[in-house]
């Protein structure tokens, strides 16, 4: 087996504990079925592209992007734990290179991101099936979103994990950054209704681009703007991936 696959196997074994898996399903389910239906009378129709979506359908599709982001936290936790518990040095003294280690992390979050996106798509399907418009690009777009989003947020979590030594610092920074991403985005509510400074802030947030792309794939509303969002997403993911790889390459023993 290739060294990268061996490391991916190891990463998945240590990351996927029952608690994490339950959290990954229960958390979005509560959002979709409790918050989604509770807010539905307040937010009746949400305009998206040429369509009007009901709020549960809008929220369920947003939860796919949100869950991809959440699951990629694993990348940062993996690196941080490996450094804290001496496994980074141990792995590097074995038959692996730093490139193997970096690639294995990217593959791990890619797999987790994809599985996570599929899981929420399946769970949320009863909520948004009426508005779904499948086309030949639906699945490729969702896969693009899942992989690009995983690389983007995984790289960001990796960057934070390489810079922070204390567990308190790591938790505070990760939670603050990801909380900002979650709520200053179009994952939970549309940008159109938000007051101006906040509305602009939504578009400084890569999660907004990710959920917009995924929604466009699911509801068949791929516009020029969505294509620009895809390009921006890919560009940010590439830049963050390069920075994360450089920082990991320079990590000292």
């Amino acid at each position: 087996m290739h060294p990268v696959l061996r490391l991916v196997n190891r990463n998945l074994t240590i990351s996927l504990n029952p608690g994490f898996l339950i959290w990954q399903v229960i958390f979005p389910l509560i959002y979709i079925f409790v918050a989604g239906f509770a807010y539905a009378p307040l937010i009746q129709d949400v305009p998206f592209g040429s369509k009007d979506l009901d709020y549960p359908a809008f929220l369920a599709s947003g939860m796919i992007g949100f869950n991809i982001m959440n699951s990629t936290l694993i990348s940062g936790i993996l690196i941080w734990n490996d450094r804290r518990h001496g496994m980074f040095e141990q792995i590097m003294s074995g038959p692996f290179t730093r490139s193997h280690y970096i690639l294995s992390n990217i593959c791990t979050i890619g797999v987790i991101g994809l599985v996570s996106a599929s899981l929420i798509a399946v769970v949320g399907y009863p909520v948004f099936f009426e508005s779904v418009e499948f086309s030949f690009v639906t699945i490729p777009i969702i896969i693009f979103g899942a992989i690009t989003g995983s690389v983007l947020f995984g790289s960001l979590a990796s960057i934070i994990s390489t810079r922070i030594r204390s567990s308190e610092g790591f938790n505070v920074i990760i939670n603050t950054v990801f909380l900002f991403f979650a709520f200053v985005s179009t994952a939970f509510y549309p940008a159109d209704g938000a007051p101006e400074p906040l509305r602009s802030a939504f578009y400084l947030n890569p999660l907004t681009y990710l959920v917009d792309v995924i929604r466009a794939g699911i509801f068949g509303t791929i516009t020029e703007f969505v294509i620009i969002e895809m390009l921006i997403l890919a560009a940010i993911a590439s830049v963050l991936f390069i920075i994360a790889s450089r920082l990991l390459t320079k990590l000292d023993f």
Partner: protein
Amino acid sequence: MSCIDVLHLSKSYGSVQAVNDIVLSVKSGSVFGFLGPNGAGKSTTIKLLTTLIRPSSGSLSILGIDAVMNPLQIRDKIGVVLQQPSYEPTLSVEKSLDKYGMMWNVPKSERKKRMEQLLKDFDLVEIRKKRNEDLSIGQRRRVQVAREFMHDMKLLFLDEPTVGLDPSARRKLLDYLKNKVKTGLTIFYTTHILSEAEYLCDEIAIIDKGKIITIDSPDSLKSRFGKEKTIKIHLTEKHPEISSLLFGIIGCKISFDAGTNIVIHSEHSELVLLKVLKILSENHVEIEDLSAVPTNLEEIFLNMMRENASST
């Protein structure tokens, strides 16, 4: 045949010279001990030899492979137990062993066989289902060392592997290592516990301030540096005149404390002891206890450290 060949190896961090021009050679199938005080450069040397860091200058050949040019080839053939703990907190002991074997590409059936054997050899059977984060420091250390034997290797680096182990576990580990050496394994072993080095090692290097002070077998080191012995005499009661009585015995260094303890350092301890006993007997001085401290590596080590400190 040499397993490790190091020529004029140096490593510096800014202005700090962590390893300074060391030269050493380790024979295949032997245990090479690497001793030194804290901060002497032991761990940096291990990191250089295991290709974790690159040298500032010098050449380094491990198992006949150039370590600077082909680090991955070397890491594929060696085992490393680092000084600091390394573990995956959420995995159980048996899962840790199994996953480590998998990381080294050991086939599943072979992994199972090795894991069962190692659980027995390292007394881990009872804690096999326990998670690493719930283990004591000593148990975790045993898992860390056992884990390394999940894969095949020609050369094993052990950086203070017995830290946290109780005396029985420590002896068991040393015996286990001795048996492994009989099968052809070469071990590079660093420790603070000199009795371990004396028990296990075929050759010993002593490093201080990044430089190797000496390399020799434990026996040769003893005969070279350990001629001086220490005799301790405890008297039943105080004899203030004792220092004047023993004054004049040549070839030794005698020190007294509150009047009941006499400590004699001499390279001719047997002759000196006879003279001291004769004087004490003639003056009716009663002895409560007498001991001759055997020369061990610890004394040699401490002497060498003192000499090195005074010469620099």
